[in-house]
């Protein structure tokens, strides 16, 4: 039987999981800053409010407000990109990702390890000093490029085994969490009850949501241009072909958990939990979700997603 010769330490599985989560997080942070920057360039009513919602999406609003009095482009991008006291900043995420990668070095191909190590070196060079506003686009591009290189090395060189699965689960759990948070921060503008008249401001907000998950172009291919709140919600929650949607993420998580179940010959609770979530995402319609309450749906999702993470850690002995 494949996989029986190999033994994976629980600590290593944990390291792989968090390595991937933090790489994904670094990339998501860069995308959030990008979105915020774009917004600051267009004159909206209140840039500070928009930055505040960016911080909420990033899950670091409280931490930010403890350090800074005001929201401005400089302090926000500093906090999200460089600040090591913010454990989710790009630099802190890369440090943690690399530390975990070092810990599981023996599980990774040389290509994956080197791509992570090189990304860390490149970002450390770029992010040690405050970033000049003029350099911001190239810095954000570089972050996305480095994480893309890691993903490429990972997908291209890693054997599909338990090592791959734990890393893959980490990536998808982080991504699902990120998409859900972005939606939750802006849920009110997607609600049909809001008097949506397609004002330019709303249009802008919807673009913002799509852009922050790199979906502003692909959305148009799928939904023929119109920014309809229902379509946007469908795209990011239920569309199984959209690589950042909740349904897509859970499809991948379930695949990996099923592979683990097969290889180990033991079925754990985590697969039941993830499976239940996936079947809900498969059968629900946007109408159902709006009826349940978009905010309620998303909050529950974020909570369940975190619990699934804990369940996986327990099932696969991440800790003593």
């Amino acid at each position, binding site marked *: 039987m494949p996989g029986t010769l190999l*033994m*994976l*330490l*629980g*600590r290593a*599985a944990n390291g792989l999981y968090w390595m991937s989560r933090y790489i994904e997080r670094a990339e998501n942070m860069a995308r959030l800053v990008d979105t915020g920057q774009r917004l600051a360039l267009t004159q909206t009513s209140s840039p500070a409010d928009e930055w505040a919602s960016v911080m909420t999406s990033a899950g670091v609003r409280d931490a930010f407000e403890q350090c800074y009095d005001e929201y401005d482009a400089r302090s926000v991008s500093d906090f999200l990109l460089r600040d090591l006291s913010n454990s989710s900043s790009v630099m802190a995420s890369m440090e943690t990702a690399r*530390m975990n990668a*070092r*810990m599981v*070095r*023996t599980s990774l191909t*040389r290509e994956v*390890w*080197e791509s992570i*190590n*090189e990304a860390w*070196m490149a970002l450390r060079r770029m992010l040690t000093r405050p970033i000049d506003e003029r350099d911001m686009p190239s810095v954000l591009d570089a972050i996305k490029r480095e994480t893309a290189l890691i993903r490429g090395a990972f997908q291209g060189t890693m054997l599909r085994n*338990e090592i791959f699965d*734990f890393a893959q689960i980490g990536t998808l759990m982080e991504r699902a969490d990120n998409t859900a948070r972005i939606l939750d921060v802006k849920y009110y503008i997607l609600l049909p009850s809001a008097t949506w008249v397609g004002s330019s401001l709303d249009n802008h907000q919807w673009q913002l949501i799509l852009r922050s998950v790199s979906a502003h172009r692909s959305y148009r291919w799928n939904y023929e241009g119109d920014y309809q709140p229902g379509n946007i919600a469908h795209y990011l929650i239920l569309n199984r072909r959209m690589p950042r949607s909740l349904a897509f993420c859970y499809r991948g998580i379930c695949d990996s958990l099923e592979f*683990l179940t097969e290889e*180990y010959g*033991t079925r754990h609770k985590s697969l039941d939990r993830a499976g239940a979530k996936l079947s809900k995402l498969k059968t629900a319609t946007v109408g159902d979700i709006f009826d349940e309450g978009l905010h309620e749906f998303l909050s529950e999702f974020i909570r369940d997603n975190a619990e699934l993470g804990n369940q996986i850690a327990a099932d*696969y*002995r991440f800790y*003593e």
Partner: protein
Amino acid sequence: MTAFDEMRLGARARQPYEAYEDWFNQQDAGRLNEKSLDAERVFRRTGITFAVYGDTEAAERLIPFDIVPRIISGKEWRRLVQGIEQRVQALNAFLDDIYHRQEILRAGRIPKEIIAGNEAFLPEMIGVRPPGGVYTHIIGVDIVRTEENEFFVLEDNARTPSGVSYMLENRETMMQLFPELFQKIKVLPVENYPQLLRESLGAVRPKGCEGKPTIAVLTPGSFNSAYFEHAFLADQMGVELVEGQDLRVIDGRVAMRTTQGYKPIDVLYRRVDDDFLDPLTFRPDSALGVPGIMDVYRAGNIAIANAPGTGIADDKAIYSYMPEIVEFYTGRKAILQNVPTWRCAEADSLAYVLEHLEELVVKEVHGSGGYGMLVGPAASKKEREAFAQKLKARPANYIAQPTLSLSTCPILTDGGLAPRHVDLRPFVLVSDRIRIVPGGLTRVALKEGSLVVNSSQGGGTKDTWVLDD
């Protein structure tokens, strides 16, 4: 004094370097400097770094690598191998004796006090016979050369010697940088070291182990200065890299926590010091070890490489008795010489050492890594006086040796080739038989005239070639 240069004899290249010199003379200086930079990039990218204790600024540093190989002829090597084999056999016989009948003490060949009062002697090991009867499985013998035919053993590293990953990565890098050189010159391979290590460890598996033994490398963790090497070796051998937190004793076996529960381990290549190995037996505050592993070990249910307590064999106070030890257990004179050593614990020696500080190298008996030593000729008067005070306060803590004129080997500098002092650490594997890969780690003092080759003190490394001739 002029040191023996291994590459040049007057205007000519010495025989082992002839082919290399031919090649070197055809190279463009700019291209070679470019290659040096390439090498550094390779090391940075692969993350071969080490941590320097007490240096928080540069938590991760590269050991400088020099692209000029250190070349040893097949004939020179074969002689070294004989000497090394004799020495590691004597070391293991000594350990077995010292933890059992202590014949060597009864015979009066070494003084009892030197064992009884020695921290490196572990009473917990008395009467314990490790699986396969091997105590020190992996040994790094530090050898220096002073003349064409004069080799001395400077130190036997019988605990957890490090540096073998540099031997392997240095070769890998050289082959990437200069593939044509390896076609031109026949260099014996070192790449099979991890495979030999695995074989060697497997051969000392405990008696009860049937089928393929489960082997693991125990590291203190990713913050340890040699972590890269621990991960590298585990990876190359295809075995697990574990930390203390992954292990626990279950049903009389040491087991590791995998994603599918606890799985027993047969052979543990530990890179954790004795003190930290078992908090129930040694340091109770250690979080790096495995509570109860010593009980499993004493019951013969796990092999630990190297065995606890091997430090007594490479202790610097014991070192001075190595000629007697080799003769006592092998019945023959030592093939490899010891450096003459004054034991400062002895009053006559202490007086001599204090009088001749400016000519001697004084080392702490338990020190390592070049810390806490005095290189007399290089030290200022003030430094020597300060050291003399320490010496008088705790004489038994020190030994002294003449300052050897270490051989030199050229490194590539901005101004071309320039000689620098080198030493050599071949790695020796002992189990059912002795395995030695032809090569080792050459450490080089990068500062002109310096005799200190330790990486923590500004030393670098070179690829070491043993010729197939």
